[in-house]
């Protein structure tokens, strides 16, 4: 006997909800995970904006993402960082302003490189390793 239309609709709703949950959980598996290092590592950072440059280095830090290390530098050097939190299912941060220089001011935006390589993920998902050097530049988009 064929299912009544309401039963079919209920089955479809259950299948849709379970599929969506499964897909979102699968997406989480691809999210980079930055486990805290067992011992401190050496990292350095340069932050460049027209008119000022900040440099920071720590030979024994456990803040091993580009974002955590930026916050550490901000705490030590006393400058302000502002960011937007992107919500789940793929949480990430987007840095809006560093030391008063805000994205869009003068057509400039914050971008960062790790060891000279343009970052391909959000700052909080970019895992740093011992000896890495991070460059934050407040610059106009230049396409490379």
């Amino acid at each position: 006997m064929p299912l009544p239309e309401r039963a079919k609709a209920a089955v479809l709703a259950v299948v849709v909800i379970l599929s969506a949950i499964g897909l979102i959980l699968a997406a989480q598996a691809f999210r980079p995970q930055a486990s805290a290092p067992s011992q401190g590592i050496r990292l350095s950072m340069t932050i460049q904006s027209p008119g000022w440059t900040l440099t920071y280095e720590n030979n024994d830090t456990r803040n091993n993402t580009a974002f955590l290390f930026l916050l550490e530098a901000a705490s030590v050097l006393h400058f302000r960082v502002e960011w937007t939190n992107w919500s789940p299912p793929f949480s990430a941060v987007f840095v809006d302003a560093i030391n008063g220089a805000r994205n869009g001011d003068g057509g400039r935006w914050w971008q960062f490189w790790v060891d000279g390589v343009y970052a391909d993920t959000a700052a909080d998902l970019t895992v740093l390793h011992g000896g890495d050097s991070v460059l934050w530049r407040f610059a106009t988009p230049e396409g490379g």
Partner: protein
Amino acid sequence: MARTPAFRKLTKLDFAFLLILLGVGGRLLFRSVFHTANIETVLAVSMIAGAFLGWRYTMLVTVATMAISDAAIYALGAGGEFGLAAILGITAFTWSGMLFAGFIGAAAGRRRVLFTTGSIAVLATISIPATLLYDIWTAFGFWMFVAGPHGLSLASVYSLQIPFTLIHLASSIVFVPLFGTIFAWLAPAPEYIPTPEPTEGAP
């Protein structure tokens, strides 16, 4: 369930307007208010427009939805880090990608009656390849205009795209049947036309 007479008076243009509202509202809500990556309603409304209203209306709904929501999103400052040339390039890919999805919806809708759970399920299933095509196409556009010039390979871009595509698939398989059900309910049911009985007599 009987539909109220008021719904029967909705024209195709009314439906298109409602879909544009859903598309723009959903995209802005998830993108600019909730800050949620790749959960969006535009692909769903494009497919629904194609399936229920035909390919001409899917062009209207898709272009209007993308134009209004893009204008709002970029006016709020998003994407400025890419530069104007890259934004225009990405726009060409996103708009055409959404149009593909709408045409897929139109092709699906032309061949079946859209007032049953089975038909909505088929439309939801078709949204999977439509979403995959859209993401493959737009990731290529992102590589061409943003990632490539910064030295990233196309393979890296596709690899990084995987979690976002999984989320986008979840978004499509929820919103396509949800909106499809709403619009199947709102749309006037097809009239039953009895088959003429053969009459006897001399030709």
